[in-house]
């Protein structure tokens, strides 16, 4: 089966106006403007099959949103090609636009002063949804998200979480085959986040639609996506499962040692970095390759009540991956640290 999304060597560069500080340069800027070329996406290759739920993960400004904008045809690329369901997104064919949806956590597409119901009706007409089909889909979505009470309330009077639910309904009324979600849970409280996650999970499994999601909440990604694409500085640096990120980038494991009451822990730093020491519990960071060896010699030398070996927390690994992707920042950080220690 042909992939549903196929991206080849996609690049996008922006020209960004540079303004120097100071009055004189502001005046100079009136006549002669300096632009900086920003490479938001630098030659991305990606293939997504039908029914996949893919997360785009990356620091701010990595090119995630730009990629989604390119795929939804809102902007044209600088070079490279992309096809979604056989359509070139930036040609903006109606046939394509009837088959996908884009939801942005920070933008709303509902009519602000009117109840969401009115916007839904307009969508029905714009997307030419059959009346029965429309009623069925709307009832189903409203029921799943539990917002039937709120349909006749002006959008402006809804809470952020309620509004996001309405946004999702509006986006799904025409039963799109491909859904792009740009930080759908941004700014939501834990309960609302969880609701939206559950809904997306259920909906995607039921309909087998293809979803591309960007989010900064690791919980969203862990709950929803089998596949994670890490983008940093406009390039893909990882493509695989979420747990695979830890295997690939998490170079260490965490040992949790619980000592017998009367046993002394002694100097443990020779085995690895001591993360916390709260006797009788000690946490050690140990190189992944040396875990067996270290554990053997600890067991040999100390009396332990309990031992635990865990992967490092995902957030930490990802933070490491991001900082690796910023070589400049990292050396600056190292310099700072060196200065602080002297």
């Amino acid at each position, binding site marked *: 089966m042909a992939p549903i999304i196929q991206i080849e060597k996609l690049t*996008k560069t*922006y*020209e*960004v106006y540079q303004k120097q500080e100071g009055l004189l340069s502001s005046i100079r800027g009136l006549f002669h403007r300096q632009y900086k070329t*920003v490479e*938001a996406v630098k030659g991305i290759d990606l293939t997504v099959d039908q029914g996949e739920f893919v997360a785009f993960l990356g620091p701010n400004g990595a090119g995630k949103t730009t990629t989604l*904008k390119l795929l*939804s*045809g*809102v*902007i*044209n690329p600088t070079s490279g090609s992309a096809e979604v369901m056989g359509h070139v997104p930036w040609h*903006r064919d*109606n046939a394509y*636009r*009837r088959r*996908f*949806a*884009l939801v*942005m956590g920070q*933008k709303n*597409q509902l*009519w602000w*002063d*009117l109840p969401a119901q*009115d*916007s839904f*009706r*307009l969508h*029905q*007409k*714009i*997307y*030419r949804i059959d009346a029965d089909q429309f009623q069925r889909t709307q009832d189903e979505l409203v029921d799943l998200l539990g917002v039937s009470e709120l349909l006749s309330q*002006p959008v402006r009077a809804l809470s952020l979480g309620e509004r996001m639910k309405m946004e999702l309904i509006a986006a799904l009324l025409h039963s799109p085959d491909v859904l792009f979600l740009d930080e759908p849970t941004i700014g939501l409280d834990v309960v609302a986040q969880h609701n939206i996650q559950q809904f997306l999970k259920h909906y995607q499994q039921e309909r087998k639609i293809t979803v591309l999601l960007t989010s900064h909440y690791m919980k969203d990604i862990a709950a929803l996506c089998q596949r994670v694409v890490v983008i940093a500085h406009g390039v893909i640096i990882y493509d695989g499962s979420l747990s695979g990120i830890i295997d690939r980038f998490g170079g260490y494991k965490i040992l949790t040692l619980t000592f017998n009451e009367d046993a002394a822990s002694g100097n443990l730093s020779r085995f690895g970095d001591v993360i916390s020491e709260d006797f009788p519990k000690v946490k050690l960071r140990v190189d992944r390759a040396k875990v067996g060896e270290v554990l053997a010699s600890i067991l040999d030398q100390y009396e332990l009540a309990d031992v635990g070996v865990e992967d490092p927390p995902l957030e930490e690994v990802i933070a490491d991956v991001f900082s690796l992707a910023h070589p400049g920042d990292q050396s600056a950080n190292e310099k700072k640290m060196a200065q602080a220690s002297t």
Partner: protein
Amino acid sequence: MAELAARASTWWAIFQINFYEKLVYRGDFMLGTLMRFLPIVTQIFLWSAIFSARGDGDSSGQEIVGYTYYNIVAYYLLSTISRAFSSMPGLASGIALQIREGEIKKYLIQPLDLISFFLLNRIAHKLTYYIVAAVPFAIVFFLCRGYFDGWPPAQVLCAYFFSLVLAFMLGFFMEATIGMIGFWFLEVRSLLFVYMLFTFFLSGHMFPLDMLNELGGPWSTIVKSLPLMYLAYFPAAVFLEKITGAELMWGLIVQVAWVLFFIIASRLAFHYGVKQYSAYGG
């Protein structure tokens, strides 16, 4: 046929949602609509003062470049009707703001033609306005019926209504084109101000443009070769039968040509604008 029915049904939905939106702030909408009639009163007083100053306290019988006091008031009332069709409050600035704020994206992903969508929104806006304004307009015209020499013949009325519809189209596509400039320059408020200023004087909203003939020089020619006069002066002059026969036909042809010119201009601006927009991030 089915395609046409589907379209008509979409248009109806767009009309409805706009109507509902206007009615949310019904107080503001009513007040805004009714306040538009205030300038009519002040203008009538102003011209009355000008004419009576000329005639030493008597405003009748005097003429200013071919216009009596009665002619001028009739002209002013008709130019107000023209502007009720051709003025587009908030259109260009609204488009520019949507570009600037990135709101335009939500329309780019939907299967609709953006310019047609804006046009339908505006038609709905205007129709809602006429529903509210019809009664006050009728009252004003009834009270001022003495300033008119009765109804013009049927064919003149037809030409008049046609030119009013064209004035609406011209106003819409001109402002839409200006709004699209927002794709290149994120801030177009000053440009809009200049446009409004020129429109105010050169559309003939303030005074009949044929008064400029008296000025001599190239002024009259310049003003008459601009599209702005079709926004107010032309329909009013048609109603008052100042423009007739071959001149009327030619005027309508030029008005249609301007409408077509700005339809194409707005399409081109949109086409290239979207490309430009994406070059600078959005």
